[in-house]
């Protein structure tokens, strides 16, 4: 058998293997992708909330994508407290101005960034939220101050449709 012949055979087998592997990959993908959020779940991605009945100093919790969203109407004192915190005191430095575009309203995912529990309102050492699962303390801007959570509570994408309505997502 000459070298040329060997090469051609190798090429044939390599090509067969390669083409076969592509097919296997293309077949596996639908089986994986079917577990991703389906079209009806994706369609529910935004929720509108009427906040006209929320008084200063009160928090409401609404469901968005199966998770709680805290919407707190903050008092002037709370805003002042949140804005007075220096960045170097923070484990995850973020200014309150960045977190609450409209300072009166704090809209954030009510999910502890440690392992996903829902923190309790107006508890803990920083006047904000306290997660009962593993003792993470958040301030009135929802920033992590003490405990195992690595980051501040997440701010979802939201906008004011009008003064009384917030659209989350």
């Amino acid at each position, binding site marked *: 058998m000459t070298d040329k012949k060997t090469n051609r*055979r190798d090429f*044939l*087998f390599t*090509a*067969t293997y390669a*083409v*076969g592997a*592509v*097919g296997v990959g*293309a077949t596996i993908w639908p089986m994986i992708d079917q577990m991703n959020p389906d*079209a*009806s779940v994706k*369609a*529910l991605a935004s929720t509108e909330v009427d906040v006209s009945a929320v008084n200063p100093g009160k928090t409401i919790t609404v469901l968005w994508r199966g998770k709680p969203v805290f919407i707190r109407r903050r008092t002037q004192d709370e805003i002042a407290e949140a804005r007075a915190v220096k960045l170097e005191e923070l484990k995850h430095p973020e200014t309150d101005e960045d977190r609450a575009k409209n300072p009166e309203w704090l809209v954030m995912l009510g999910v502890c960034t440690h392992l996903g529990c829902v923190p309790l309102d107006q508890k803990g050492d920083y006047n904000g939220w306290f997660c009962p699962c593993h003792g993470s303390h958040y301030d009135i801007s929802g920033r992590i101050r003490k405990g195992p959570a690595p980051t501040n509570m997440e701010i979802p994408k939201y906008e004011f449709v009008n003064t009384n309505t917030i659209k989350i997502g």
Partner: protein
Amino acid sequence: MKNFFRKLSLIILFFGFLSNSFAAEKVEYLKTDWSFKGLFGKFDRAALQRGYQVYTEVCSSCHSMKYLSYRNLAEKGGPEFTEDQAKAIAASFEVKDGPNEDGEMFTRPGKLSDKFVMPYENVKAAQAANGGAYPPDMSVLVKARGGGVDYIYSLLQGYEEPPAGITLDDGVYYNKYMYGNKIKMANQLSDGLVEYADGTNASVEQMSKDVTTFLMWAAEPHLESRHRMGFKAIVYLIILTILVYFSMKRIWSRVETEV
């Protein structure tokens, strides 16, 4: 090998013939050229949009389409209304929602994620309003009828005066394509019944074709991607089969047996 494939194709042919014979009563349906048939079949977008118009203006007062959502109208492979158009369509319907904080149900304008609003609360209400006959949900109607699109298309145009000797009860009509020829739905279409937004002449034939196309899409919303993927899959399989065939020849050439 040749022998083997001859036998095999005979068997496959037989089963094809067998499945064909399932359609027990053979009625010659009216024929038209459907754009979605064939290896590369696609829906005619304009027909789908017109069909949706016929559905909303004519059919939807009795027939629900409970598996469709307004978002589907803007999805790829469907009527492909723009997102804004679909939103406007959704908003033109009153959707029941709730309960609110006071525990009461309320209505609000529809959203893209809402299902098509149903004409009746439930099957019983639909029956009560239609002389005991339930106007079937049309989401999968095309697939639920033996004759498929041709049957629906023909039925819509199949109203006739009953032949002599056939008496019809009140609220029953004669249709030459209906199973048993008696149908509880009156003829709904007449020339110029709807005014098409794109200016197409709304003849009975045109409306029947458009709304049937729309129903086909409703029943098989992924038909276009199915056809596209199918073509790719089969071409791919043929290429791999050829490669494997030559690999096989190469491998078996080491022994003196033919494959």
